[in-house]
């Protein structure tokens, strides 16, 4: 168990009387891409929010590399190497693509408090930012404001921002949401690239089953805020309890 980079222990959060996430204990290891699935409202994003710090749990702990981070601010977690992308595009809209990425690079270097030397002369920052622009094939739109990019490029920028933070734990919340089938692979290939680096731990919330099959090393299933299945993708997807959850929802919706 000591090889886990991220652990949640009995993680629970209540909103009034509603228990959104209930006692979820789980370990995530470097070199493993875990996909979190579950019907809408299962608590996947809430679970993510507690890990990355947007929400503080009612009970339970979050540990990163053995350190309790349950009550740390999101910025402190980010500086510790926990990087999270969001379900809805969540960028700095009026800043350029390059500026967006440079911000992420700069956050990790401690240059964020520099107040005298012009950004343009900090070439190390710029070079690193450009490196991630190349890696995500966004170099051509470097000087455009993020808000003016097509949706697919915005999603790519979202991933680029995360990569530029150089975290050791990546958290993606439906990275291909709203993307057309032609463009989704761009983002998925980037995630596959990240996965090749065996020192990285990747968590991914995803609905699309082909994505899950292509990328997952392991699947965990949340349902009504509880962890109901955890294991090898093939096994989990064919298990009865998971089929019931999904079919049950399909019937409920019909």
């Amino acid at each position, binding site marked *: 168990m000591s090889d886990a980079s991220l652990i949640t222990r009995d993680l629970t959060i209540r909103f009034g009387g509603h228990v959104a996430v209930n006692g979820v204990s789980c370990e995530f290891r470097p070199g493993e891409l875990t996909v979190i699935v579950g019907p809408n409202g299962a608590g996947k994003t809430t679970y993510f929010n507690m890990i*990355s710090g*947007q929400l503080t749990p009612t009970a339970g702990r979050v540990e990163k590399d053995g350190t309790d981070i349950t009550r740390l*601010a*999101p*910025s*402190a977690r*980010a*500086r510790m190497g926990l*990087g*999270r992308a*969001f379900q809805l595009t*969540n*960028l*700095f*809209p*009026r*800043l350029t693509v390059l*500026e967006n990425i*440079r*911000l*992420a690079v*700069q*956050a*990790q270097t401690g*240059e*964020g*408090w*520099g*107040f*005298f*030397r*012009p*950004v*343009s002369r*900090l070439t190390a*920052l710029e070079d690193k930012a450009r490196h991630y622009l190349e890696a995500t094939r966004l170099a051509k739109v470097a000087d455009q404001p993020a808000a003016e990019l097509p949706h697919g490029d915005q999603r790519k920028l979202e991933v680029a*921002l995360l990569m530029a*933070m150089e975290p050791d734990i990546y958290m993606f919340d439906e990275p291909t949401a709203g993307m057309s089938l032609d463009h989704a692979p761009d983002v998925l290939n980037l995630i596959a690239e990240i996965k090749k680096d065996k020192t990285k731990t990747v968590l991914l919330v995803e609905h699309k089953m082909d994505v899950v099959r292509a990328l997952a090393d392991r699947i965990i299933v949340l349902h009504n805020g509880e962890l109901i299945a955890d294991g090898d993708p093939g096994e989990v997807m064919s298990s009865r309890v998971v089929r019931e959850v999904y079919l049950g929802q399909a019937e409920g919706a019909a």
Partner: protein
Amino acid sequence: MTGSKFIKTVVLLIWAALLFAPFLFQDVRSIEVAARICIFIVLVASYDLLIGYTGIVSFAHVMFFGMGAYGTAIALDHIGNGWGPLALGTLCGLVVAVALAALIGLLSLRVKAIFFAMITLAAASVMLVLAVQLSGFTGGEDGMTYRTPDLFKTATKLWTDADGKVVRIADVKLNGKLAAYYMVFAVSAVLFWLMLRMVASPVGTVLQAIRENEARAEGIGYRVVAYRTAVFCIAAAVASLAGSVYAVWLKYTGPETALSFDIMIDILLMVVIGGMGTLWGAAIGATLLVLAQYYLRDLMGVAAEAVSGVPLLPDLLNPDRWLLWLGICFILLVYFFPRGIAGTAMARRSVKG
């Protein structure tokens, strides 16, 4: 020429005009206007760091300006007109302003923007009341008139010729008034330049990131409250220094010149007219509004004279109605330049001319 270059050129021309103002416009009033423009450029630019760059709405900016002014004024009034009291007073004003900014910032920059704005409004009101009430210390409603270091006395001769008379260059006397003006100019120019450096540096981008998307800035590793508090303190420090300089220039400090909400409204108008989030806009807004405040009446007087034969028009152009016309100009400006003059121009790829 791109819009951005155009605006920068205009601002550099404004600074050039201010540099040569005592020689270009040789009357007492012009030099008052020039000094006021210098100080308001700095004051408005420091406010732009808050509202334009970081998205913090504060109504306490005039309070920090007043703290600098009162700090310097009280020291000069109560201790004496030397350089020591001037430095001490300025430093005290600066320290109090930054400390209060830090306190307000840490206690309340976590709350929603509207509550923060209310808190700053309350703080500024309290400070205005205090300044009026503590009349033994601050001069109350009447304010304080005091002497500044001898170098800035009008009678001081910076340079004398063989007969002991003050030397003139291009008919301008090299006296203490000139020294005082160049002190105002130099401090203002340096502060403005420092702020330009700051917004072009990494911290400048972080501030904009906080304005654009606070949660995400926090999410990628920036302590948003720390940055906000820091910029609030920096803006307070600059405003306080501007206040100290103004106190030395005017040789008078009172609620009307250093703490009144009229000044806060002027700052807001200037930053909106000039365009938020560029600093260059602050310089343009401050220049235009100060010029309008001083010269619109004169201009209207001339216009009213010119149309004196026509019915109705002279009445409309009566100099007493200058505020009405200023208001109309302001509405038109906001209508045609919704992002301010600099904001609108810099967003364009190119402008004619």
